[in-house]
């Protein structure tokens, strides 16, 4: 209990004094996770919607694969991205290993199946509701996808927030591909792992509380901006 109390006090002082290190790694955490979220959403939202409305030969297989990929072990993703980006790997020439870009790539791989799968579930229900109308209006596949994404945007927000939650809290993959380098690739989760390893539980807890506060703050901001849970709005 003493550690938790000290962690809370440390977190409070780190925040109110605008601790430079804390600000840097917090901003980097946000930058990496939000960039990964935007990229993953741009891929996963149309993909999940497409899978909801389009029938094709291996559709069930693709959906099963997507659902299975939701549970991808981050460490394995990190290892694969590491091999691909390492000097001897196919993308080694770009020199991305141990950079925030590598961390973004790993997070995109981890959260895209999650967002696509939740999107698919939500869009499948909306498509069942809209199917006859949109077919009757002779809409193209792209028009259907746009309509479903727009009208189902509140559900998709939930999908994206789930992805963000997974990204901001991820440690295994970004530790491998980012290397937890001070002033370069250190983020909140890798810093927590480091401080825990050093036995500085108070600081690790302080960083943990900041991480939780950030995740909650981002969620509240997005809900507020998108005006969810207000009467008469979707």
């Amino acid at each position, binding site marked *: 209990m003493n550690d938790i109390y000290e962690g809370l006090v440390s977190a409070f002082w780190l925040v109110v004094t605008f601790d430079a290190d804390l600000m840097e790694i917090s901003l980097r955490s946000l930058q990496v996770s939000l960039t990964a979220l935007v990229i993953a959403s741009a891929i996963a939202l149309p993909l999940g919607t497409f899978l909801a409305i389009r029938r094709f030969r291996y559709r069930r297989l693709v959906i099963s694969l997507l659902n299975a990929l939701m549970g991808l072990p981050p460490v394995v993703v990190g290892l694969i991205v590491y091999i691909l980006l390492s000097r001897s790997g196919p993308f080694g020439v770009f020199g991305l290993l141990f950079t925030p870009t590598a961390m973004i790539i790993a997070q995109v791989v981890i959260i895209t199946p999650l967002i696509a799968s939740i999107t698919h579930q939500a869009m499948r229900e*909306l498509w069942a*509701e*809209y199917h*006859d*109308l949109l*077919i*009757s*209006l*002779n*809409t193209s596949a792209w*028009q259907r996808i746009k*309509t479903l994404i727009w*009208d*189902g945007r509140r559900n998709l927000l939930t999908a994206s927030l789930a992805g963000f939650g997974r990204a901001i809290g991820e440690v295994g993959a970004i530790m491998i591909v980012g290397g937890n380098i001070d002033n370069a690739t250190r983020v909140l989760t890798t810093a927590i792992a480091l401080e825990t390893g050093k036995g500085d539980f108070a600081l690790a807890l302080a960083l943990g509380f900041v991480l939780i506060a950030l995740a909650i703050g981002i969620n509240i901001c997005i809900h507020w901006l998108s005006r969810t849970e207000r009467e*008469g*709005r*979707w």
Partner: protein
Amino acid sequence: MSTILPLTLTDVAVRRRGKRLLGPVNLTLGEAGLTMIIGPNGSGKTTLLRVMHGVERLSKGHVEWSVTEDAARHRQAYVFQTPIMLRRSVADNLRYPLHLLGLPKAEVETRVGRWIARIGLEERTGLQATRLSGGEKQKLAIARALIRKPDVLFLDEPCANLDGASTREIETLLQNALAEKTRIIMTTHDLGQARRLADSALFMLHGVVHEKGSAEDFFNAPKTDELQAFFRGDIIA
């Protein structure tokens, strides 16, 4: 612009899982008026309507318009028995089909304003359409179908489960559409409504057109025993 009619169905049949739902149906529908499709439950009314609209896969036969299938699809509209509301405001539900047509914004707003006034929802333009009453939803669905100025309007029991006032408002909308030369083909269970609105009628039984004719002959001098029994309210096996 020439009309997409006549509509011709040749040897049309629909089978699902080995069961015949419709057919064979051979039918030609001309350019004007309101054709009412009546018949008992499961007789194939809705299937026939969906076949005509092109949203039901045929097992046999073909459906032809006077223009290509794609051109015809853009000039017809369908109103479902249970109105499907987009999760948008009343005004946005009306804007949606016009945006699909790529009309200029000014034209879209003019038409939307006119139709909102016609269906009496001026006070509810910003309200989510899903929050409307059943009658209001159906009026909005009909307005959303007619706002595109279709040549042909299909309606599947549009007044089912509606009270008298809502039914009257919908019938007025349909009569106005007829006056504007929209061809209407609809199904109903309400024989009173069929008599009030129809110019011609079809009686469906066991998936085939059992009897058809002008409204006057159809309602006043039914030829088949089954249609006579249907008008008497007998149960038809």
